[in-house]
């Protein structure tokens, strides 16, 4: 690509117009992936709050969020120390692994091969597990265990978002924008969860995962190609073309997998 720096850093204040073709998909991807993971984390935090109260649930969740913020702040700038092509190749391959994993699972769920993720079932399972723990553990340890469970839920679900934020943001000086996208989704989920006080069952989780999988796979092909020195036609616009292609192919695979499953069923 013409005029790119040799290390993985850009001046954030001097974004050329073509960068917006990367910025919009990057921020949208961070927002949607954060939305999916925040819904899953909220289910567990709500279950903990309903069994042990808001205090341990909130402390655990906030500690988890602080850890995630620290990881972004530490790892994001670190990438600028490495040569740009090496960073693009490494992040591209990780994005392909990560994005195609999400897309594969979303396709299999959309085709009915594996069941959809159900927040109501997850909430019931988590609540039951906590009640069972409460029967077996000493009362004094319960708040500590509840806080730890809340911390683990936020940290684990958030780790995927952290990777996505760094991967789609760090290479183009979009770390701040991608982080804001992810944070905005978190705030939306927390606000809605706070108002309705139960798991967000109606969020079309698989559709969101499908969209994020498509975007991450497109970014993965783009960055891996850039790392290998491929001069993509249309430069950054190629990401949108790849996303459209992945979407079309993925929808086609859903139809094929459905048909193949129906044919395989005993008559």
């Amino acid at each position, binding site marked *: 690509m013409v005029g790119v720096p040799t290390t993985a850093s850009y001046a954030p204040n001097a974004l050329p117009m073509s960068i917006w073709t990367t910025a919009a998909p990057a921020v949208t991807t961070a927002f949607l992936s954060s939305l999916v993971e925040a819904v899953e984390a909220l289910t567990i935090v709500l279950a903990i709050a309903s069994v042990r109260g808001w205090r341990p649930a909130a402390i655990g969740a906030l500690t988890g969020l602080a850890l995630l913020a620290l990881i972004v702040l530490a790892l994001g700038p670190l990438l600028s120390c490495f040569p740009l092509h090496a960073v693009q190749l490494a992040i591209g*391959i*990780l994005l*392909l*692994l*990560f994005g*195609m*994993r999400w*897309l*594969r*699972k979303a*396709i*299999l769920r959309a*085709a009915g*091969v594996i069941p959809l993720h159900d927040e109501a079932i997850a909430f019931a399972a988590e609540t039951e597990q906590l009640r069972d723990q409460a029967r077996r553990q000493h009362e004094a340890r319960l708040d500590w265990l509840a806080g730890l469970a809340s911390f683990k839920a936020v940290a*684990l679900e958030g*780790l*995927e978002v952290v*990777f996505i934020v760094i991967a789609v943001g760090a290479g183009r000086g979009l770390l701040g924008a991608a982080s804001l996208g992810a944070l905005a989704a978190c705030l939306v989920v927390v606000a809605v969860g706070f108002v309705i006080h139960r798991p967000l069952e109606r969020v079309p989780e698989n559709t969101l995962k499908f969209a994020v999988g498509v975007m991450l*796979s497109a970014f*993965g*092909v783009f960055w*891996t*190609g850039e790392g*290998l*020195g*491929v*001069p*993509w*036609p249309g430069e950054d616009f190629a990401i949108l073309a*790849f996303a459209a*292609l*992945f979407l079309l*192919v*993925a929808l086609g*695979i859903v139809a*094929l*997998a459905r048909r*193949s*499953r129906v044919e*395989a069923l005993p008559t």
Partner: protein
Amino acid sequence: MTILVTASRMLVGLFIDDGALAVAIFLVVLLSWIFSTLMPEMPLAAGAVLLIGCLGVLLANVMNAARR
């Protein structure tokens, strides 16, 4: 030690769910790198291998899982 093992398993699990899919992606990237090294005058060939290869891997992997 147990925490370290659990953490590294978790980290690997972030990227690798189905081993066959991960291996196939690595092979496509490797093939693309071979193309870019052997045919530097046609860099788009490596890009085409990468893009078509990834789409092909996705199709094959999902169809295989659907038939299982």
